[in-house]
């Protein structure tokens, strides 16, 4: 039922768009008709350019997510071992968490230059802190009895974390990953819009910027469509599936 409702809304949005585009009130440079947008999308996909840029962005974000998530797990483990380390990570997170990655950009250009490393840094920054906060909360919420039981079975050290703490706090970890993904994706697109290689690859954000400078409005919208599709794919399909196969199957959450 929800799905049918949602699709009705989509159709409605699209018809409204076409209606406005055809009303003749706006220049096609401002409001291109859907046909022009889909034509631009088709050409950009067929030439391989948009796919290449998308691949570039996705690879970057996966790399950043992986590094950020692993770092967050390690820091989370460390901080549940000693109160001193915990105060350290909490202080670090309190300082860094409120900083938008884009605000750091001028500093990052000075430190790391303008290449892939800088964008990666921004992604890791947007992933690490929300993820870390969720890891710490999640670990703290693990019932003592589970940890004690694990210890009684002789599970210690890293194994205790991987076999008891991580599964027991999975709802928190997945929620953290969702926030991290959303932040990283936004940070990535904005960072790419600020610098990129004129002829080489620069990702989806760069693609949009390039269409903007050469005044290809339909081309700009075609890249926006790709961004929307990826967002839907990741949030509604991938995360949904992972949650269904883990925390919902295990009865850890009822949603």
């Amino acid at each position, binding site marked *: 039922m929800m799905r049918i*409702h949602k699709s009705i809304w989509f159709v*409605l949005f699209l018809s*409204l768009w076409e*209606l*406005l585009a055809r*009303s003749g*009130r*706006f*220049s*096609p*440079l*401002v409001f291109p008709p859907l046909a022009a947008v889909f034509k631009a999308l088709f050409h950009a996909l067929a030439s391989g350019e948009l796919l290449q840029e998308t691949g570039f962005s996705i690879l970057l974000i996966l790399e950043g997510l992986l590094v950020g998530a692993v770092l967050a797990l390690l820091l989370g483990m460390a901080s549940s071992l000693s109160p001193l380390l915990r105060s350290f990570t909490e202080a670090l997170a309190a300082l860094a968490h409120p900083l938008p990655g884009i605000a750091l950009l*001028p500093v990052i*250009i*000075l430190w*790391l*230059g*303008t*290449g892939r490393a800088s964008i990666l840094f921004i992604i890791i920054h947007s992933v690490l802190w929300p993820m870390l906060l969720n890891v710490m909360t999640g670990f703290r919420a693990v019932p003592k009895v589970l940890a004690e039981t694990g210890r009684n079975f002789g599970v210690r050290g890293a194994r205790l974390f991987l076999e008891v703490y991580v599964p027991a706090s999975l709802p928190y970890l997945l929620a953290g990953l969702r926030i991290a993904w959303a932040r990283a994706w936004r940070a990535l697109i904005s960072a790419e819009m*600020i*610098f*990129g*290689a*004129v*002829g*080489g690859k620069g990702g989806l954000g760069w693609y949009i*910027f*390039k269409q*903007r*400078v*050469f*005044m*290809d409005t339909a081309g700009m919208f075609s890249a926006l469509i790709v961004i929307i599709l990826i967002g839907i794919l990741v949030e509604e399909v991938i995360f949904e599936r992972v949650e269904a196969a883990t925390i919902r199957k295990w009865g850890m959450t009822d949603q």
Partner: protein
Amino acid sequence: MKRGLLKLIALIIAASLTAAGCTPKETSGSGSRIAIAEQYGLAYAPLQIVKELKLLEKNLPGTVVEWKQLGNTAAIREAMLAGEVDAGFMAIPPFLIGWDKGMPWKIACGLSKSPVGLVTNREEIRSLRDFGDKDRIAVPQPGSVQHILLSMACEKELGDPHKLDNQLVTLAHPEGMSALLSGRDITAHFTAPPYLMKELAEPGMHEVLNGRQAMGGDFTFIAGVTTAAFHDKDPRAYKAFVRSIQEAIDYINNNREKAAAILAEAYKMPEAELLSYLLMEDAAYTTVVEGIEPFAQFMERNGYISKVPGELNEIVWEDVHDENP
């Protein structure tokens, strides 16, 4: 629940239709307000004079002038398309890209010629030939005058206008300068004053290429462009606009010391430094427009625009002085 949903849909449709029914903001031609967009740099100096001496207010009494400083040409173009800006200042290549895509605008006047140059922090780079695969060159954006000039030089010297395209990085002038000075991946920066002089004043920096070498002659760096709506609806305002620019340019050319004092304050630069810039050989303020044809031909040949203007009056308003080298 169902009825609530339907009501909401009806409401949204009604709202959007009313929105569509409203005409875009009418700003131009009313005679009471002119919005002008510029970017940052010494090439825009006459506009500072127009502002400080209130020349537009003098030439068109009762006008409210609204000045906007925007970050790049694309933003100016979009503001003009949205009807928020009547006149914008930019280089010829971005103007041609807009014209090619159907922007209803033409050049009203030239504003400045300016030294522009490719500055590098690597001693061994003496010409475009010396750039290796690892070098990265910062330019303000693809399709900018700096990018086009660099491509022109690549065509001349290396035989391929796109030779260095894969090594270009887009950075606004201030970021480009700090990236170059930090000595990391950016090894060269194509820029304009005041960044050009600031960079060259640093130890270890030198110029590989200047604008005149790239173009093979003189060219207008920044020109004034107005929308057709502004030009057609209020000829009096349009004329006052062009006259004000001319008066500002005459003022700078006839009173260099006084102009330098006004500009030094506006640009927060030492007066002596500003005066020495005004006296530089390559810097000139003039309403004459130069270099449209070579830019257009190069850009058309390399696919940046799809056509070359047939008649000059397709791209410039009447009474514009054009000189082609």
